[in-house]
């Protein structure tokens, strides 16, 4: 029991505390490739601490939704951090509360909450971002959920831990067609959900911003929460991609070796950051209305191989 509590606490704290670091490493590496000095890898932490100290301004006319949704969304992401294998390959205390599909639906819930709160601010920019998000997310979230179903069909269970264990013990299952294309579709969704360059260019002055515009009216502590949940979301999606789809191996489960998972996850993340970096620095941003084409391809892949995995069984 003590081990279980220790595992739960370590996974939770690791996700919470290390998520901004990966964003920082990403920013630093990208700056180096672009021949800039770049911010420190701890810059996201400095940003969060700075914002936590600042005054919070709330638009007049906004309701309770605007003020509490950042906390609620943060809570939703914290819950997801406890139910999917983002550090440990064995179930922890809250794992039983939801399965793979539950995790995907919680992601959608957080996205919905943030959109509702942004609409509540009454800002034109935020409303524009929400309308963009809504018109893209119907394919994005749909593909996310179908990918999770497709990968669960490989093991005939909806438990990500079982999928991870199955993929570790059956290496050939990693190169089945269904798994490869589910991975591809999930990677495409990962790039979209985390706002990477071929789809979205981050920054407050960008015309093509999607996710960033939801934060437009936020300031101070609320903005800090939103930014932090953004980092956690990126970490969660990336870790699912790594642990369930791309590289399921290398995780330890027994006490005290599970602490070795931390450097293992760092190594895996460096690989993922490298892959994303290559994409970010070689591709140009697509036009806004082309994002739907991209998501349609991801959705098509996920549905297609969902059907094929069912038929092949």
């Amino acid at each position, binding site marked *: 029991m003590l081990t279980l509590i220790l595992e739960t606490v370590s996974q939770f704290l690791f996700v919470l505390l290390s998520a901004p670091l990966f964003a920082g490493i990403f920013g630093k590496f990208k700056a180096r490739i672009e021949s800039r000095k770049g911010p420190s890898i701890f810059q996201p932490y400095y940003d969060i601490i700075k914002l936590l100290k600042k005054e919070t301004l709330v638009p007049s006319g906004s309701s309770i939704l605007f003020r509490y949704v950042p906390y609620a969304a943060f809570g939703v992401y914290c819950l997801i951090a406890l139910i999917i294998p983002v550090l440990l390959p064995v179930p922890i205390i809250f794992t039983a509360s939801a399965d793979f599909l539950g995790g995907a639906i919680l992601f959608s819930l957080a996205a919905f909450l943030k959109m509702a709160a942004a609409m509540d601010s009454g800002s034109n920019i935020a409303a524009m971002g929400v309308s963009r998000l809504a018109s893209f997310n119907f394919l994005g979230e749909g593909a996310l959920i179908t990918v999770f179903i497709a990968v669960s069909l490989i093991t005939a269970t909806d438990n990500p831990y079982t999928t991870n264990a199955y993929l570790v013990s059956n290496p050939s299952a990693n190169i089945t*067609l269904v798994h490869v*294309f589910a991975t591809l579709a999930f990677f495409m969704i990962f790039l979209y959900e985390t706002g990477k360059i071929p789809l979205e260019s981050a920054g407050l002055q960008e015309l093509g911003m999607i996710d960033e515009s939801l934060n437009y009216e936020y300031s101070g502590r609320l903005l800090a929460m939103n930014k932090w949940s953004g980092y956690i979301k990126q970490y969660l999606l990336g870790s699912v991609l790594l642990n369930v789809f791309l590289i399921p191996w290398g995780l330890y489960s027994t006490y005290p070796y599970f602490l070795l998972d931390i450097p293992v996850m760092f190594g895996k993340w460096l690989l993922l950051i490298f892959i994303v970096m290559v994409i970010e620095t070689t591709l140009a941003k697509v036009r806004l209305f082309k994002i739907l084409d991209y998501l349609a391809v991801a*959705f098509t892949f996920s549905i*297609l191989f969902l059907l094929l995995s069912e038929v092949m069984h």
Partner: protein
Amino acid sequence: MNYESIVFLLSASILISAFYVQGQRYIISMIRGQLVQSLLIAGTTFLLSYLNHSIDLLILGLLLLFLRGVLITYLLETKVPRRKSYVFEEGVNVPYLFLVDLIFIVVAVFIIYSIIFSSLVPVSQPGTSSTLLFPLLLFFQGLFLITSRRSTFSQIIGYVEEENSLVLFAIFLLPVPIVIEASVFLDVLALVVISSVITVEKFSHERMEELRG
């Protein structure tokens, strides 16, 4: 080596090439997508001919390679108007096309395949009736390509795709006599020759145009 999974992989690539053709705006890319699809089918045929030691399938593969891979592609490419790489079709809405295409596929899988095809036993690959799904999906994609586009080129490519699906179905189900295959090829070839004459006259077809006297 596991040949079954190679055939499966090739079939899935054929399906993806069909999606690629479906999502293209540029005519020249569509023609090359069709080329890739035909080459993949030729590759599948060669593989099956090696597995079944069948000379018929080998000849069929060579026919596919020369007629579809070289001749039809050449005929279509020469008919594309000048400044080839810039010729595109307007009003191609990729998400819409893909979603409707997926609906076609769901219908194909759940109704036709699960009721009729799943009980068939392919001769060339015993025990794998699931590969028969791919020709069916390809057929629907060709059909949908014809109905969803207005340009003559897209419609010809849709027709070629349908014929491709018939060939794929034939080589998966049972090796048919080469005469039938040859007649299918001549059919396609004649169609392409005729339609290449049409494309000189008319690049795209409006909805009710053909019905006017």
